[in-house]
């Protein structure tokens, strides 16, 4: 079975909620929409206090090309335009909406009927991309890169295939798994739209072998779908961080994207998350902008780990309450998975476009062990999926030797955390490497600015 060729680790999977079907979460009393939910310029609010909105009403325009508009997920009245502490831990401008009823924009097709791609064959690539852009779709895996930008590769590049990331290599998370089991047809339509958008004839869906039911179902569906689009399901050997863009390309088509600033398209690949494919289907075929997503709410002490269909702007506290309430022994709450997710300051943080999960960790799991001296065991070197030397990069960061850090390719680090996960001495390798990486990136930017 295929997998990526360098490094990788095997964290305990803990997919507690994989058997739980997707349930809609309740509506919040007040929904909060941060303006910076994506990589790039924050969106600009176009509503003001007292405005009435419906589900699917645009409340903020894209702030530039690398940006995305934001839509209301609820109907009601704009309470205020203020700030909120989001998953990043910083206060960001945000629109607050008091929820009244559940009235949807009439343009949205709410019927469950599947709209097939041959009904809209006249759609051209640029129409699809325009619709995706207008619907505010960003990468749903967590990085939140605006999807229309990814679908508009720089001139001179030649995409040859679309690779759908359905790996879900983060422990605990099951939202993509459930989405595939419950909406396989919609996903395939979405993939076909993405293929049309970048004008390629081949797509792969990479799924790790710990989801055999999803592999089986998607393969069967893809075979039937073959006459419309050439979509192949690729089962992958379980290994973290296979969901990393570069690792997935290596695993699926055996090509390695060169060091930054090279893009995946330099080896012909356009990568999209499976959730993004679903959102693309809904946006293009159902005229539904991105305002809800599937969120895994999980944790060992949580009484009912679940997969919820959540309106964006819902505070995490409400989801936790729906899953049995915050356990007594809670020590840490993570937005996303345990390997790359962010620890949250409080439970008022609203669900955003990139919120794939809410993970509750107990007191014991939340604390790091005490740091011991590096014993030079080289386990971090073996684990690094980018072929870097984490022990060295962390020492260089400690010594503030930025010049050497740059020479040792610190900017190639994808911050997957495999090094720190594997370190027997519990050294804060990634903490230090992040510091080195961001400093070196700053130095490089300053150099180019001159």
């Amino acid at each position: 079975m295929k997998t990526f060729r360098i490094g990788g680790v095997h964290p305990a999977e803990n997919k507690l909620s994989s058997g739980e079907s997707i349930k809609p979460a309740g509506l919040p009393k007040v929904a909060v929409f941060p303006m910076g939910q994506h990589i790039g310029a924050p969106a600009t609010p176009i509503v003001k206090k007292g405005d009435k909105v419906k589900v699917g009403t645009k409340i903020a325009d894209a702030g530039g090309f690398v940006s995305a508009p934001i839509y209301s997920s609820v109907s009601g009245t704009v309470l205020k335009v203020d700030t909120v502490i989001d998953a990043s831990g910083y206060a960001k401008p945000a629109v607050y909406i008091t929820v009244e009823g559940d009235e949807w924009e009439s343009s949205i097709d709410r019927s469950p009927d599947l709209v097939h791609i041959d009904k809209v064959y006249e759609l051209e690539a640029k129409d699809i991309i325009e619709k995706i852009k207008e619907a505010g779709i960003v990468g749903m895996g967590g990085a939140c890169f605006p999807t229309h930008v990814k679908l508009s590769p720089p001139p001179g590049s030649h995409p040859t295939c679309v690779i759908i990331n359905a790996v879900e290599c983060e422990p605990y998370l099951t939202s993509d798994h459930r989405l595939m089991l419950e909406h396989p047809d919609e996903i395939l339509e979405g993939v076909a739209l993405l293929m049309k958008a970048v004008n390629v004839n081949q797509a792969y869906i990479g799924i790790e072998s710990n989801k055999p039911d999803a592999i089986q179902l998607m393969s069967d569906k893809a075979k039937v779908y073959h006459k419309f689009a050439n979509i192949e399901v690729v089962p992958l050997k379980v290994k973290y961080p296979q969901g990393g863009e570069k690792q997935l390309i290596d695993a699926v088509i055996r090509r390695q994207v060169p060091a930054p600033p090279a893009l995946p398209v330099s080896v012909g690949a356009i990568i999209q998350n499976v959730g993004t494919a679903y959102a693309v289907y809904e946006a293009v075929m159902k005229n539904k902008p991105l305002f809800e997503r599937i969120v895994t709410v999980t944790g060992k002490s949580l009484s009912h780990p679940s997969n919820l269909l959540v309106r964006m702007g819902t505070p995490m506290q409400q989801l936790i309450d729906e899953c049995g309430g915050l356990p007594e022994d809670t020590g840490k709450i993570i937005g996303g998975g345990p390997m790359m997710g962010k620890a949250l300051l409080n439970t008022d943080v609203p669900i955003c476009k990139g919120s794939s999960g809410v993970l509750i960790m107990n007191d014991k799991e939340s604390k790091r062990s005490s740091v011991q001296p590096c014993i030079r065991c080289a386990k971090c070197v073996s684990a690094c999926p980018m072929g870097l030397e984490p022990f060295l990069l962390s020492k260089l960061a400690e010594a503030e030797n930025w010049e050497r850090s740059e020479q040792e390719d610190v900017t190639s680090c994808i911050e997957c955390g495999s090094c720190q996960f594997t370190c027997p001495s519990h050294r804060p390798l990634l903490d230090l490497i992040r510091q080195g990486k961001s400093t070196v990136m700053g130095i490089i930017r300053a150099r180019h600015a001159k």
Partner: protein
Amino acid sequence: MNKLTVSLSPHVHSGDSVSKNMYGVLIALVPALLCSFVYFGLGAILVTLVSVASCVLCEWAINKYMLKRTDTSVTDGSAILTGVLLAFNLPSNLPLWIVVIGAVFAIGVVKMTFGGLGCNLFNPALAGRAFLLISFPVQMTTWPKPMMGFFNLDAETGATPLALMKQVIKGGDQAAQAASELGNTDFLSMLTGNTGGCMGEVCELALLIGFFYMLYKKIITWHIPVSILATVFVFAGLLHIAKPEYPAPWLDLVSGGLMLGAIFMATDYVTSPMSKKGQLVYGIAIGFLTVVIRTWGAYPEGMSFAILIMNAFVPLINNYFKPKRFGEVVKK
């Protein structure tokens, strides 16, 4: 609600620890340790106990009284490991006060002077052995014969197979006698350890069991041991073909400290290279140097010096042999 912990990712850990690795190596040493007790009796037990106790005590005392560290780190198992490995490199009839000197040199000078765990350039146990070999050449090369009775501390002594091989190579009066004596030592008894030598190195079979245990537990990878053994086999084989009085390569593999060195000494985390490429280079160089010293050097045994010499090259190897970066792989 409790106060929430806020820290950077990753939020989970493999559960691996320094002591797990150290005790893992110690478990891998158990078969060889038991063999040494069986072959060399009470002497081996005493040497081991004294060596371990002096290593641990020395590390603890330096941490506490000289470095004034609150965490004296002896529980991580690394000092115990050094103690056992040092004992493995000594003859079982060595006077115990010499064992203590070796342990103090290994821990006090070679390890703690550089800052303790993770900082030393040379393998402490091997440096301790080299120090004793140079300081007490007679005691360090008087080998008791195995299986001479458990409580027999003044057992009959004899030459090691390697020393006999050296005699044969040198030629002269004693060559013929050495050759006939060597003829009595067959491959099988060398493999199982029924020969003279340092207490931990004689039973290659037990060492191999430890090797497979460490591979299984992912404490070490195959790169260093296999590259050393393969290099020795090939190089010694070529010499044997060129000049039949040089020992056969399979005898080289099971004699002296080769297995012990390749499996437990050269793979020491702290003093071996970080990248797989570097580890292969390191292993090949050790194998090559070992055969060179065994064949043409002053000492019959070359393993410990080969490893110590290559320890000094590790920083250089780390600089020149980087892991293959992502994206450098040749496109297929």
